[in-house]
């Protein structure tokens, strides 16, 4: 947290949030611009005590963040954030599978921008643009979706980033609640699913024991 605190806490990140931890553990490719003494242990392929200048390594973002803050490495924008992908996202973000690129696409991008990665401004701009483009569709799908088209819904949900999925679930839960109220299913008492399955099991066990009794 010290690293992000140093640059003014730009990203609203929660230190203990599991999504944030997962997002930070994704790897980025870094290049050392200085040789660093006694850091050889992070490069397992080289059997050397020090890391030489120009070494290229795949490091998790949380480590890259601290190293970059000290000016030891430069970070290449990974797939999904580089210029080619930014152009794709600008053209039509709604067809891109962000789950495959992420699944914490926005959180990771936010951290990337916060550590002053090259092209940071363009990345941030593309994040905003992507979210805006996709949000309209998410809203339409989650607040209007019916059970009639489960396959399309499923395919759509598979393309969502984790935070988009959270929003989607929020929307569809709201819709479900309102529907429940409208059809008056809220105040009907019904059996818990677990109890129902318990009964089935009991019945099965009774049938089994009866059979054993007749056998003997």
């Amino acid at each position, binding site marked *: 947290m010290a690293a992000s605190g140093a640059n003014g806490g730009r990203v609203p990140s929660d230190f203990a949030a599991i999504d944030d931890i997962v997002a930070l553990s994704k790897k980025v490719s870094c290049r050392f611009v200085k040789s660093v003494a006694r850091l050889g242990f992070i490069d397992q392929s080289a059997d050397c005590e020090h890391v030489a200048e120009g070494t290229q390594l795949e490091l998790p973002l949380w480590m890259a963040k601290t190293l970059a803050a000290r000016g030891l490495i430069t970070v290449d924008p990974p797939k999904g954030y580089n210029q080619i992908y930014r152009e794709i996202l600008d053209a039509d973000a709604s067809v891109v599978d962000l789950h495959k690129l992420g699944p914490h696409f926005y959180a990771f991008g936010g951290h990337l921008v916060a550590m002053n990665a090259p092209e940071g401004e363009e990345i941030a701009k593309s994040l905003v643009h992507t979210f805006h483009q996709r949000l*309209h569709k998410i809203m339409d799908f989650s607040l209007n979706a019916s059970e009639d088209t489960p396959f399309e819904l499923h395919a759509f949900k598979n393309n969502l980033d984790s935070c988009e999925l959270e*929003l989607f679930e*929020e929307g569809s839960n709201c819709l479900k609640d309102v529907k429940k109220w409208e059809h008056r299913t809220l105040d009907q008492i019904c059996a818990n699913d677990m109890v129902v399955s318990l009964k089935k099991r009991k019945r099965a066990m009774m049938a089994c024991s009866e059979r054993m009794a007749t056998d003997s």
Partner: protein
Amino acid sequence: MDWCEFIAEEEIVEIIPNFKYDKQLNLISGDFGPFLPSVPVKVPLWLALNLQRQHKCTIVVPQWIQELQRLQEAQENSDTLIEMPSECWREIMHLFREQCKSMPNYSSLIEKRESILKSSVHALFRHAFESKSLFLTDVTLHNVSRGELQLLKSFVQKSFAQFQALRNVYVYSKQ
């Protein structure tokens, strides 16, 4: 949504009782009564519904429900939300529909208002996207009721927070 209905049950309606009760009822929301046969009296909706279930009164359908057709037409011709006669019209309509079967069909009214609301949310996000700074001024939404907001509220809340967080990252990255 169920607590919206709970609040809506406080709405005052007129009933015609068919029983006699000389004293007043002192409730938290006010004093009601006395009840005399075939003398109209005003009571909260929850009490009216309760009495009707016991066949002790008939509820006088409010004027605005009878004028629903007119409201529906007015909404159909308007691009913005029109003012509804009651803050909790949707909940009240729902409660009334269960009591009397001969209610005018108002589903197109709900649908039209819902689609206006949704398009205004889309417009809000577009407005936020186009504005340069983080702070948005003058976002107003007229004539929307509690029950209608229930569908959109938490979704819009969360997605707008997320959107602003991303915009925050962008605005800072420019400095």
